[in-house]
């Protein structure tokens, strides 16, 4: 089985696992609040049921159900079934109508309070009676509730105190917190689709000594600043994190919002996220797209602000290196500082992975692999072309000489695509990795972009997509996705097709690496495809404003068209 199985462990029960006991001083506000509303809905969601029924066809999955780890989960589910006399999904639905976990001190697990509200007091009695048989200290509690008491006295089980109040069961390591929270009413969901909402006070978490390093801004690491610096700065200045999970009719939606201070320890990084009034990258999604990501990043601005972002010594070293690299690149015909080259690049970055086609080689390959391309917008296409044309020529010569590749140029509309391909003379299969015959690195500078791809077709397809967006009056640079800094898209359906196209390779690998027969590998592949088809697609969108980063992930059949 290629897809690792992760057991669906009901969150509510997982939360029962707490380790140590310590006293707690009362805190006015919790640092963590997690609310759950009828989580069993997730188990009945079309997406989940499709995946579960596909998994049931997997020999590997069935095998793994006989392992101690899953026996343990099964034991728990069987307990629920036996306790309530219904199958476990319904049992879970009855047991957890609502639940709330509150944490009052990130350093003290016993300062957590879990409240689980079942559908009725009777359900609570049934559960407690069953639990008391396994955990004898719960006996007095079961007796109190069974005798009709509306609320019980807390009972200690190891480090935990357990109490029952009507249809609610309360668990905590701290008695005063248990009393305080016990008097509160669990909130109703904001909307019918909401399954989980969580609120985390980042301030409280950040102040912990252990978190200091994780939250530190990488003032000495230019690579980290360029790749994740904006995120780190926002987190560093973060105040509160909200996460919500919704069960929509056709899919699942997870959204997260990080609210930051306008000012903080770390400067806002200009150029990392798209300003609200700037041009935004529109995702490129040609036919057959498996994965596409588009994001905004102004590296010229980041370079210009380097004194604010990095330590002086690091800046000095980078500037020295800037000159050194220019000297090293002269051999390629490039007489520019890397920082100048960065200044030629625009702010839109695109990565597209799409289904491949039969390799354009004489060597026959049974499988078909996806192809990929990267497109970066240019501030001045003409200047970039003039600067890099000699470089491309030298690179072509190197590839032809050292790598023994054939380099040729071919027109594509008014663009010219340069392609380097491996020689595939007789016998080449025996020496070297035959997978290379899926690749023919290609590049072009056209339509305001530099495009580099794994094959000529990938570059041509991305160029056509850029052109299509233009001709349909969708500016690739246009402000179509207001305030969206990053867009990601995964088509699981296309991935399922790609999986089938790569079958010979995957089955061969499964045989050599896993030792399973081709028949079994085919079965697992079919299961994986079914799961991917059931998942449909996923989109992730990040938007920012002055104080908030919002990330929304939607998985399911919610994106029927491009």
């Amino acid at each position: 089985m290629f897809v690792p199985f992760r057991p669906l462990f009901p969150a509510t029960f997982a939360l029962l696992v707490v380790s140590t006991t310590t006293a707690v001083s009362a805190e006015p506000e919790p640092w963590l609040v997690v609310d759950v509303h009828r989580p069993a809905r997730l188990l009945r969601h079309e997406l989940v049921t499709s995946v579960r029924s596909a998994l049931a066809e997997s020999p590997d999955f069935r095998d793994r159900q006989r392992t101690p780890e899953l026996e343990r989960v099964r034991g728990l589910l069987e307990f629920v079934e036996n306790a309530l006399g219904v199958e476990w999904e319904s049992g879970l639905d009855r047991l957890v109508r609502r639940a709330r976990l509150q944490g009052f001190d990130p350093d003290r697990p016993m300062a957590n309070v879990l409240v689980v509200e079942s559908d009725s007091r009777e359900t609570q009695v049934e559960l407690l009676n069953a639990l008391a048989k396994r955990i004898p200290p719960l006996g007095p509690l079961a007796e109190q509730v069974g005798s009709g008491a509306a609320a019980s006295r807390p009972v200690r089980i190891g480090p935990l105190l357990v109490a029952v109040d009507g249809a609610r069961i309360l668990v905590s390591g701290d008695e005063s917190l248990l009393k305080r929270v016990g008097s509160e009413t669990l909130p109703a969901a904001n909307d019918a689709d909401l399954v989980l909402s969580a609120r985390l006070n980042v301030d409280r978490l950040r102040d912990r000594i252990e978190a200091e390093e994780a939250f530190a801004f990488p003032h000495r690491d230019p690579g980290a600043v360029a790749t994740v610096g904006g995120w780190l700065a926002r987190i560093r200045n973060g105040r509160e994190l909200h996460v919500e999970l919704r069960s929509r009719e056709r899919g699942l939606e997870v959204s997260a919002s990080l609210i930051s201070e306008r000012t903080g320890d770390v400067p806002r990084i200009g150029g990392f996220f798209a300003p609200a009034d700037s041009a935004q990258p529109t995702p490129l999604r040609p036919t057959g797209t498996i994965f596409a990501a588009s994001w905004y990043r102004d590296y010229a601005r980041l370079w210009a602000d380097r004194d604010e972002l990095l330590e002086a010594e690091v800046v000095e070293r980078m500037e020295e290196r800037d000159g050194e690299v220019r000297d090293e690149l002269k051999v390629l015909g490039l007489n520019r500082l890397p920082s100048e080259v960065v200044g030629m690049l625009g702010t839109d970055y695109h990565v597209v992975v799409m289904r491949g086609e039969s390799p354009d080689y004489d060597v026959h390959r049974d499988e078909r692999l996806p192809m990929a391309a990267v497109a970066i917008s240019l501030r001045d296409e003409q200047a970039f072309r003039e600067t890099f044309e000699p470089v491309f020529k030298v690179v072509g010569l190197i590839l032809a000489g050292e790598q023994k590749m054939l380099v040729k140029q071919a027109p594509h509309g008014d663009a010219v695509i340069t392609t380097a391909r491996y020689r595939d003379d007789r016998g080449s299969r025996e020496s070297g990795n035959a997978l290379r015959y899926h690749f023919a690195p290609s590049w072009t500078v056209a339509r305001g972009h530099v495009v580099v791809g794994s094959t000529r077709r990938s570059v041509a397809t991305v160029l056509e997509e850029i052109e299509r967006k233009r001709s349909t009056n969708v500016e690739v640079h246009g402000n179509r996705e207001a305030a969206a800094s990053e867009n990601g898209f995964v088509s699981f359906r296309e991935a399922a097709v790609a999986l089938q196209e790569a079958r010979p390779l995957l089955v061969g690998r499964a045989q050599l690496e896993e030792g399973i027969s081709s028949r079994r590998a085919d079965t697992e592949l079919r299961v994986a495809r079914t799961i991917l088809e059931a998942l449909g697609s996923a989109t992730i969108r990040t938007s920012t404003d002055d104080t908030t980063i919002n990330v929304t992930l939607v998985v399911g059949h919610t994106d029927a068209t491009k």
Partner: protein
Amino acid sequence: MNDEKTLFGLDPETAWQPLFPTPSTWNAAKLAHLHRRAEFGASRARLEETSFVPPAELVASIVEGREDRRYEEDVDRLRETALARSDIRSLQALWIYRMMHSPHPLRERMTLFWHDHFATSHAKVGNYRLMQRQNELLRRHALGHFGEMLQEITRDPAMLIWLDSHTNRVGHANENYAREIFELFGLGVGHYTEADILEAARAFTGWDVHDGEPRFQPQFFDAGEKTILGRTGPWGAGDVVRIVLEQPACGRFLVRKLFAEFVSETIEPGEDVLEPLVEGFRVRNYDIAWLMQTMLGSWTFFSDEAMRHRVKSPVEFVLGAVRELDGPAGPLRLAELCERMGQSLFRPPSVKGWDGGGNWLNSRTMLVRQQTMIELTRGRGLGQRTDPARLVSSRGESGDVGLAETFLDLMLQRPDHPARDRIAALLGEERRRVQRGFASASSVDGELARTAAQLVAALPDYQLA
């Protein structure tokens, strides 16, 4: 010969008679012994499936094997995949895959034997396709006629390169192949002279490898008269092979080697004991299948002195464990582990093959054997499909002694092994450690099953085939 090691005063007339199954001569241990020696081992299902088959019938079916066209097509594709990866580990993995899945496991077991016999290493040949081609040759003839195999191996491109026959030319004869065909492949030491080697080397001249194929070039062949093992004529390569096969020593040499491989490597049988096999082998034109069927079906093979009297080679060790634990497991990783235990397929240490026997075991390789079993029994990674936890009762009613007996039975066919109580005690300690919370009896037993399998695999008996 040391009298103590003579095979218990065997009567040559009866030594190779088929085993007559009675409750005392035919039991689970004997059945597992046959599967272990002939098929690398057996899963519990395979043992159950064959437990009611009379031994003679079972041996015949093991020697005959089973045809499976889909498997052959599957392996043809996989061969190309492995060759395209251009690394020796993939070829090793391909072979281990075949050992694991072949519908004719004895053929793979015999192929391994012949690979050791005609030991050729990729380290010198340097061509994956040629190594694979030789492997196919050995498989094709593994249970065929030895004479045909010897003729073909003499012209096998990998062998021509390995023993420098491709540079053996008239006037500049290279003795390597001539020496080995006498000493290691056909006769054994003491049945030829240095002069025979020099003359045979002349007969082997004229062959080289062109475009992956053997090629005879008459201009480089020494066409003069040669006297080899008392025969004089203008002999060529094929003639030398024929002359070797005509020698009485040839059958004796091969039968003794196969006896050591499949019956016992610690006992040295007298010539008279082996003679019926040698004679039958010779008159049947060196029919290996006949020899193996006779040897594997004999009561000598099933005697107590033959059982667990061979050290498992690394390949036998890993394949046996995978079968017993109802695998499969990843061939690439298994090939790597075999190499760390001292057996790198396609890369024997010398033309003599692997030393085998007690040489397989030393402090380092024993450690790797332990590590291998831990990997195979931990329920994830390499061991994700060989998890012993799947083999225990699903209701978890075994108890510590029961679990110890289950795995002693499965892996050693000795539920009453002297180590049973010690293993049970260790499992008891482990049980107290893992029991907690909602752990059901079956999940605890599952975790203990992994420990039990590791403990049994650490016993000295488990190192023996």
